[in-house]
Every structure is written in C-alpha cells, then in structure tokens.
C-alpha cells in the first residue's frame, strides 16, 4: 500500500508539474497569437500534450491506476480548457474597446443597371394584361400602306390619314404610324378567340420638341370573341387603369373617332396631380387623356375574313412614352432617347 501510495503521489506529482508548467506558459502568453500556440501545444488533437498524456499515460495504465490517472487527466484537461478559454476571452476584451466603425460612411457602390422607363411601363402593362389572358406579340416596324391604313379602314385620300404624318421609305413601304396594323396581321393568321397585346416602336414625321419625337412607342391591345360588348371594353380598361395608376383614380370614357373602331372612345383618368380639382397639368379639366379605344369596326373583319355577325371585339392603344411621362412626371420626351445616364439612373 505504501508503494501504491508512493506511486500515487508520484503520479499526482507528474500532473502537478504539468499544471505548473501550463500556468507558467499561460502567464507568458500575452497576445492572441501566443494563446493560439498555447492552445495548439496543450489541446491540439494530434500533437497536443494532453493528447500525449491521454495516449501514453492514461491508455496504458493498469486497471487499478486507471481511475486515478483518468481523474487527474480529466481535471487537468478541463482546467487547461477553462483557463485558455478565459484567457482568450480576456485578451479579446480590448477588441471591443477599439473605436467602432463609422456606420454612416457609405459602402462601395453596387451597380444594377436601370430599366428604361418606357420598358418599366411596358412590362407593367404586359403583366396586367398577361394576367387577363393576353398574349404578347410583336410586328414589323416597316409596314405596307395596306396594313397601316387600308385594312384599318383608312381609305386612300381620307383626311383621317392627316392625323398621322407618315414617314415613307418607298412607294409601297412606310414606317408604321401606330401599332394597330398588328390587329389585322394577327387576325389574318388566327381565328377567334383572341387576346393580344402588341408593344413596339412607331414613327411619325414630327419635328422633335418636348412632346414630339419622330420615333415613339405604343402598345396595342385587342380581344375578339363571340359576345364581346362595349361593357367588356369599359370593364377591361377600367380594371387595367386602376391596376396601373392606383385604385383611387376615376376614369372617363368619351366618344371619339378612329376609322378602325366604332363606337370609339378616348379614355381619361382623373388628374394624379390635383386629384381632379383642375391644375396646369390637366389644363384645368381635372382629367388627363391616356388612351384611345373602341369596338373593332366590322369593316376590319371584312379584310381578315371574320364573320362580323358572329364575332365582335374591342381594341385599344396607348403611347408608352406618354404614359411614362405621366407616371414619372417627365417633362420632355427627348430624354427617353438621349441615353443620358443622369436620367436613366433615376430609374435604377
């Protein structure tokens, strides 16, 4: 027993020596770098001192010594772990007292390019009509007299053509003055029922100024089916306008004239600036014109071979540039086509 006791004292001594060694080294480890070394030296998984004692002292110990060695090993290990942790925490303290970053300084710029305002408006319109079952299509910008005028019931030498000062390329080819030719092009290809939306560029021989450009954008929409009525036209456009401009706007349909629709209407919305009281933007009328529409004239069906006694439909068209100008308060149409980044970046 004495021997055993002596041996136990020897074993405890060994662990005591280790503990003292650790405490000296801990006292010397003043900065995080030394602490990390200390941690590796003592607690390293493969080559750490405590792994060594675990493998070479504890594992080979005989059964009667194992509980004692195990107890000493564990107590030293937890003491070392605790001490290093505390030391790390203590050394870490000064970091918190470093001056805080100036959170009001800007981060580096993150650049996502801007959608063109005309495109924003176009895509918004497409998604509203898309959810009502409208397909999106495109058509040629270089058109024939037939599609741009004749099949839309603009007879030759008719003053209705005056409203659209046309840019000609040859005797037979012109730049489309509106997106409406696509009504005819699509109806020619396809029987009813149809719902289409056709955005695109259009051209008129207008000298550029704040509200005119020889090139601008329109979107044409139309629906043809059995039993489509003037009430459906009103409902569809009212729904669209409230979705687009906000549910608090009021709409107004007033009779107008387009050769390819009858009855025709122009649609106004209550002025978004003054709310309808009358201001400069709405020329004191309280209303702003946003689109033209109507029931497709039966004369158009003749050109595409539809039976006007069976089918009816409506069509509408609006200027995307104009809508974008209204929506964002843009005062000069030329801004759309200059590529001025100071303008475009406002839409990022």
């Amino acid at each position, binding site marked *: 027993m004495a021997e055993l006791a002596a041996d136990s004292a020897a074993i405890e001594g060994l662990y005591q020596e280790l503990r003292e060694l650790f405490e000296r080294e801990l006292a010397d480890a003043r900065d995080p770098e030394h602490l990390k070394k200390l941690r590796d030296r003592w607690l390293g998984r493969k080559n750490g001192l405590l792994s060594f004692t675990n493998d070479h002292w504890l594992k080979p110990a005989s059964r009667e010594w194992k509980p004692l060695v195990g107890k000493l090993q564990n107590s030293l290990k937890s003491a070392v772990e605790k001490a290093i942790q505390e030391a790390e925490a203590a050394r870490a303290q000064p970091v918190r007292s470093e001056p805080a970053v100036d959170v009001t300084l800007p981060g580096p710029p993150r650049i996502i390019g801007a959608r*063109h305002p005309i495109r924003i408006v176009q895509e918004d319109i497409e998604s509203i009509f898309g959810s009502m079952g409208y397909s999106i*299509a495109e058509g040629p*910008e270089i058109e024939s007299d037939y599609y741009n005028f004749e099949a839309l019931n603009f007879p030759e030498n008719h003053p209705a053509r005056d409203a659209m000062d046309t840019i000609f390329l040859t005797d037979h080819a012109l730049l489309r003055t509106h997106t409406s030719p696509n009504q005819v092009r699509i109806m020619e290809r396809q029987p009813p029922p149809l719902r289409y939306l056709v955005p695109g560029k259009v051209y008129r021989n207008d000298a550029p100024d704040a509200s005119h450009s020889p090139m601008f954008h329109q979107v044409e929409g139309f629906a043809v089916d059995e039993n489509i009525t003037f009430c459906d036209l009103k409902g569809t456009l009212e729904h669209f306008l409230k979705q687009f401009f906000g549910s608090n706007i009021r709409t107004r349909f007033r009779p107008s004239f387009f050769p390819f629709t009858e009855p025709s209407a122009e649609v106004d919305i209550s002025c978004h600036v003054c709310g309808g009281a009358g201001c400069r933007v709405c020329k004191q009328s309280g209303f702003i014109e946003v689109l033209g529409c109507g029931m497709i004239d039966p004369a158009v069906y003749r050109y595409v071979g539809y039976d006007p006694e069976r089918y009816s439909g409506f069509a509408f068209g609006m200027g995307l540039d104009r809508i974008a100008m209204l929506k964002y308060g843009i005062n000069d149409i030329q801004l759309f086509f200059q590529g001025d980044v100071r303008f475009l970046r406002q839409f990022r």
Partner: protein
Amino acid sequence: MRIVLSWLAEYIDVKESPRDLAQALTMAGIAVESVSEELGETIFERDITANRPDAMNHLGVARELAAIFGRQIRKPEIHLREDARPAAACASIAIAAPDLCPRYVGRVAVDVKVGPSPDWMRQRLELCGVRSINNVADITNYVLLEAGHPTHAFDLDTLEGAKIIVRRAEAGERLITLDGVERALLPEHLVIADARRPVALAGIMGGAETEISGRTRNVLIESAWFEPASIRKTARHFGMHTEASHRFERGADIEATTWAAARIAALLQQLASATVLKGAIDAYPAPRQRSAILLRAAAVMRYLGIEIAAVEIESILCSLGFRVERLDGAWQVTPPPARLDVEREIDVIEEIARIYGYERFPARLPAWAGRAEITDDSRKQRQMRDVARALGYDETISLSFLSRSEAAQFGAWEPVAVRNPLSELQSVMRNSAVPGLLRAVEWNLNRGQTDVRLFEIGRLYRQEGSEFAELPVMGLVATGRARPASLNDPGKLYDFFEMKADVAKLLDLFGWKNLYFDRETGAGYYHPGRSARAVADGYAAGRFGELSPEVAAERKLRQPVWLAEICLDRLFRLPLREPRFRPLPRVPAVDRDFSLLLPEGTRFEDIVAAVGAREHLVRLEPVEIFRGGQAPPGKMSLLLRAVWQRDDASLTDEEVNQYAREILDALRKLGAEQRA
C-alpha cells in the same frame, strides 16, 4: 375650331353654365378643349374628329345640344325679296364633270355695294380667327361658320360669257389663286371655269381675276358639293389647306347648298343693299337619295351589351334628325343629309351609344376560354435585359435613324433610305447599333459623365429585294471605370476582359455546344489588337472590343470606349440553357499551381488544347501572367492552376502528383518549362 357661345345661343336655348355645356358636348364626342373669355364673349376651343364635318359650325353644335338636352333648334330665317328678273337669264351653269361635282347651285345678286361689314359680323369672324375682307367675302365666311357650307362669291362681270363650267383642267392651263400664287393645273384637277379659262380651284380657293373688289357690282354666289377624295388630292398636290377644302374633303351636306345660297343672298340684300335675282340656278343632274339603314335591336344589344329601351333609341335618333320607322325588332333609319358619316348599322349604334352616354354603360370583364402565350424571343430578350442590368448596364433606346455617313462607316449593308427625312441626321434607317450608342457616350462625356455603361436591344433594317428585314440586335457600350471608385479604392478601369466577360455572361444564357473567340471582327472601327469575335456553334454570335483610336479621335472621344454587338437573330435560334442538376460532390476539390515559362505568343486556348480533357480534371485557370522581370526575353511567365474533383472519393497525393506530371508533360510540347 372656335365656337362663340352667344352666337350658338341664337340657335338653341342655353341654360347651362359654359363649363357644364363644354362638359356635355365633350361627353357626347364633340370635344371642347378649353373655355375662354375674349372681348367679353365666351369661346369654346374645339378639336373636331375627321368624321364630324357637320359639327364644324355653330348650327351643327346647336343640333348636337338639341339631341343631348332634348331641345329644339332655331334655324336662321331667310327673308329674301327676289327681283322679278330670273337669275338664269344672267348666268349659266354647266357641269362637265358630274362625277366630281354632282351639284352646283348659283344665285345672282346685282347692284351690290361692296364695303366693310358691320361691327357685329366683323367681331364674330375675328373671334373665330377669320380676317374681315369686305362685306361680300365676309358674308360667305359668316355663313360657313354659321351653318358649315363652303361657298364662293365671283365678280359676275369678270366671268367670260357669264358662264360657269365645272370641268377638269386642261393640260397647260394656269390659274392665279386668291393667295397670289400661280398654279399649273393638271387634268385630274377640278376647276370652275368661265367660257374661256379656269377661274377657281373647285372647293379649295377662288381665282384672283374674278375676285370681289371695290369695283364689283354684280355677284355670282357659288354653293356646290364636290367629291371629297378629289378635293383632298388636289389640295395636297398644291400643298393647300383652306376652310373650304377642310370641309369638302370631310364631306359637306349636299342638301345644304340651296339653303346656303339663299342665306347668303338674303344677307347681301340686308348688308350690301344688293338686289337678288329670282330663283337659284340649280345644276343637280342626278339627285342623290340616302338609303335607309336597317337597325336591329339584337345588334344594338350585341355590340353595346345592354338593352336600351326602344323608345329611348327612337328618341335619341329623332333628336339627331334621323327619320325612324319602327319594324318588328328593328327600325328603318334614315340619317339627316349632313351626316355623311352614318352609312351602316354600326354607325347608327354609335350614335345611340354616344347620346345615351358612355358613362351609363356598366363595366364588365369578358369571360375567356383562350390561352396566353409568351414568345420564345420575348423571353430571351427579357433574360438578356436582366443579365445586362445585373452587369451594371443601363438600358437606353436610340432613334432608329442614322445619317448617311454613320451608316456608311458602321453598317455592313446599304441602308434603307427615308424618303421624307426630317434632317440629314435622320436620313436612313439604322444598319448598325453602334452610332446610336456612340452618340449616347458623346452626350454623356460632354456632360461630365465619364463612367458610362449602356445597352440597347432593338432592330436593324435592311432591304432584301422588295422585302424588308428587321434584324434584332443587342448593343453594349462602356467607358470609364468598370468598378467605380469608393472609399480607399480607386476603382478599376474598363478593359478588354471586362467586355469579354460581359459578352460571355450574356452568351451563357444560351444552350450552345461550342463557343470560341477569335480576332475576326470584320469591322474596321474596332481596335485591331483589342477586339474579338464570339462564335457559337459555328455562327458569329457577336463581336466586341475597343473602338479604334482613329474613330475615337474623329469623334473627339477623350477616353477609351468599349463596344459589343450581339446578333440576336442568330443567337435566338439557340434555346435558352436549361439548368441541369448534378449531385453535389462529397469531397472537396484538389488544386495544384504550375509556375511556367512559355514562348511569347502562346495563347491560353493552346494550353487548354494541349492539356485536353483528362480524368477528374475540372478546371484550368490562369492565375498570373507577366512578361519581363524574371521572365527572359521571348518568354512569358504563367502561373497556371489545375483543379481536380472526384465525385465519389478523395484523390490521394500520389494520384494528384501523377496527374500533375502528366499535365507538365503535355505542356512541354508547347515549349513550356517549369520555373524554379
């Protein structure tokens, strides 16, 4: 056109305020643009659609108000005391072109005292924007503004043979019109002639030689009806647009001719002490009958979507002056002669809807059994836009026009010319996306914006025989910094590889099998050493690079500009790349760096080709390239990284060493040596 409220009130009782009146007219399709006060009078400024010439006068507007409010109009009364001498004895009228002039009514007034008009008439004319000339001319203009029928007054004594012949002009004939311009006439032009020569351009403008003057004593009043298309063609030929042509080309009222002539005669009697000869000379070889229109109640319902009571339909139509005869479930409807725009059932339905009031129709959403489609091309375009924006490019839109010199410098084909261009800068349709982008860069640089990245998706135009092609194209332009300066970071300038990376990212949207880059841009406006072409599956998908310094200097661009052009018609034949899931590797990849000396001019593509496809090799990437310094002349130094990845197990050191040796062996064939 302008409407004077007090004048209008002569023909109808007006109880509403001017603003309410304007509103009621607007909501019935007679748009009133503005209401103003002038010389103590209320003026309506109107914008009249081409289909309503009948409403381009005070009486016409009164008729509309009568329909809207259910009131009666008062037509001006004509108090005419005719002389016993018949007019037909003093003048004759012959229509030689009844296809272009179906009716010509003449009246003769003698002993006319030409002088100024009374103040009330002058003021009304001026309020309507018509200059006062003398009482005779003023009376014809007054009646035009009053009732809408254009007329003309000739000095009868200047008409050779006191004859009116309505005929086509003869080749070589000339006429000096009232505006002092001598006009060369063609056989398709309709003229009013006397026995010897043309004296007026029919329906457009009178002639100077037969004009009313201070010496005029006897007057022939013309009140005729001309074929609209012919008037329009002739007016456009001469670049003329008059109050008369404006109305005739839209369609006047053939039955108003006799009334207008009598009204003018009465006013000449009243205001110019004229003696009016007996009767009108009415040349009307084939009187026109307006045929009745069948209006079906079912059609009204089918177009308008609501049932409107039969009595309401009848009352609307009657108030507009239609003759209405009720049948079983339908009506026979005859429009008033002034309403040339009403010819078909749908035209009558529009009249009903308009006066019934658009605001009274309920809003409904139609049922729908069709399907909505988005085209592949629009999906592709949208994705390209999204990627370009993510890459930091702002979207721009340039005009589709170029100047001839721009088209010649940047386009690959003869551009489509504009026949009536607004200016030289817009004289052809664009055959390249580049000039528009360069104009935008110039615009920005001139305004102190030096970091610019723009993209545009649009079309180029090309004539192919008698057809035209519109080719979709994407253009990009970049100048200045790719990464903007920020705190402690000067940023990074745009360079070739920035543009290459942007183009590659855009092309990556598509499912090509093979993509390579070479230097064959085929366009002289690129810097020859800093430009490339991208070839996807054998087709040139695009080209990009630095704008050549010569072109930049010509355009006074003070900093390098980078361009890219992507042909979307080619690219869009490829499908969008569909993501495809692969199981995630369970072990990390292993990499090795090779420090190599290579002969100058070795291309990265040669290195990739020399290494070739190898088992578990997933990537070869250049880490660093430098020349000079430790690299001897004729050599370049490349730090190359190879990355291996095995999906099912870790690679051992021995395996990786073996792979690395094999790669080095392969590169030695290019003359590569490993640096110490």
